[in-house]
């Protein structure tokens, strides 16, 4: 089965990096693959989106196991880039309005002539390595362990707007991140139409060696994102969604020294049932990037950022099982 999925994904990725007609065909194959697999799946539940969060939480005392796969690919034309992020998560409804989770992340990557000026540039999770500009870089790494807490203050089923706060600390080798979110949700049409907005602030502390001096220092960086998403349940168990994100990076903790600002958008399909869900999302970076005070020279190609935390395409699949 793994080999079949690998082959399927290989075909899809080739189609997506081709011309527009082939891209659309690739998207159609993505959707059809999911539909074809679904009848054997049985049951399911949230999340409705690939990247955006809603205020829906597990009921008190309930467990959920989730497996995420996020594949990020393609940067510089002519170069090669692939990052596979994997996340295994256990969620628990501590109270009806407080959900806790623990997860681990483990990634692998392949990069060649993918970054600014066509230099081989590892993705951010692998920035501890310093390959030469013409090296073929490949690595697999355990990234870290994360905790996650979501506290719902207003429920969209009772109040006019749902509102929750989110905190997620991550600890890895030479790396700490604190990701905070404000989550908003508004439902319409018997709660079948769900609108969500997330504001994210995520400062990172990363111990890195300077590639030339070899001196080790702390890299200050903050990710600040705005996510907007809409989902509609178009038939029993099935929802279709659209997400748009603005992901910004700052070389400070206070929104100064902005380095990058990328825009992504794309569709999501979600199947949810009684004990099981699957969510599949595809996003493309739009050619809307512009230079900022700390943008790396050569970091924008064809209007898209090719720096180490950005890619042109990404596919996320989430699978979850309730207990």
């Amino acid at each position: 089965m793994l080999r079949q999925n690998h082959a399927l994904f290989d075909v899809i990725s080739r189609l997506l990096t081709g011309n527009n007609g082939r891209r659309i065909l690739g998207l159609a194959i993505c959707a059809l693959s999911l539909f074809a697999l679904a009848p054997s799946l049985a049951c399911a539940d949230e999340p409705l989106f690939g990247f955006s969060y809603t205020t829906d939480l597990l009921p008190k005392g309930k467990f959920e196991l989730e497996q995420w796969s996020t594949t990020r690919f393609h940067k510089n034309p002519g170069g090669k880039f692939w990052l596979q992020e994997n996340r295994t998560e256990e969620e628990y409804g501590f109270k009806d309005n407080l959900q806790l989770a623990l997860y681990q992340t483990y990634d692998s990557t392949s990069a060649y002539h993918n970054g600014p000026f066509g230099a081989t540039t590892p993705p951010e999770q692998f920035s501890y390595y310093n390959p030469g500009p013409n090296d073929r870089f490949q690595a697999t790494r355990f990234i870290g362990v994360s905790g996650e807490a979501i506290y719902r203050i207003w429920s969209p089923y009772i109040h006019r707007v749902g509102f929750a706060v989110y905190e997620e600390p991550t600890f890895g080798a030479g790396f700490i991140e604190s990701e905070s979110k404000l989550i908003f949700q508004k439902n319409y049409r018997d709660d079948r139409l769900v609108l969500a907005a997330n504001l994210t602030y995520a400062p990172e502390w990363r111990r890195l060696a300077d590639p030339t001096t070899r001196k080790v220092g702390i890299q200050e960086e903050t990710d600040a994102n705005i996510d907007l998403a809409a989902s509609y349940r178009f038939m029993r168990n099935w929802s279709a969604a659209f997400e748009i994100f603005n992901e910004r990076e700052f070389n400070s903790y206070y929104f100064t020294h902005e380095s990058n600002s990328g825009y992504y958008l794309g569709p999501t399909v979600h199947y949810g049932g009684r004990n099981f869900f699957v969510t599949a999302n595809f996003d493309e970076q739009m050619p809307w990037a512009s230079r900022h005070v700390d943008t790396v020279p050569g970091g924008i190609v064809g209007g898209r950022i090719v720096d180490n935390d950005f890619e042109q395409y990404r596919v996320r699949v989430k699978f979850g099982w309730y207990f």
Partner: protein
Amino acid sequence: MQARLIFLPLAGIAIAGGPAYASVYLSVEQAQAILFPGATFQQDSRTLTDEQVKAIEHASGVHVLTRQLKVWRASTGGWFIVDEVVGKHEYIPFALALDERGAVKGIEILEYREAYGGQIRDPEWQKQFLGKDAGTKLQLERNVRNISGATLSCKHITDGIERLLTTYELVLRQPSH
């Protein structure tokens, strides 16, 4: 293609996939026997017109899911209605019994297919609807108690009953053509 940790979720799907199932609690006939013991029933189903749909939605504030009204008259007096509301992923079929005056006489959940929220079958929770009629605007957490962990189901059943009480007032109570 290099070796990658790819598409683990889909592998998981293949391993974990199993048959779907639903909890069917009562048939229509069983619900009729519980809500109107000893009665016989005459089907009196209707199809709502555009104007009736608009009037019901305006008065109840609840979206009408289907124009087809599945209604029976009980020989002992009163109405038996089968309807459904939106659940988290599936629809929740339920039966509502109204007495001769159009007040709630009983509720039965016929089928429940969701992971959570099955507590709406609790008779203690359902008891709060008894005697309510179209003159009372039903609203979760205002005059209908919520069940933590079953909020969506509580809200939609409350809305469904509100919609059917309004439907009785605007459609069933009127003399039929």
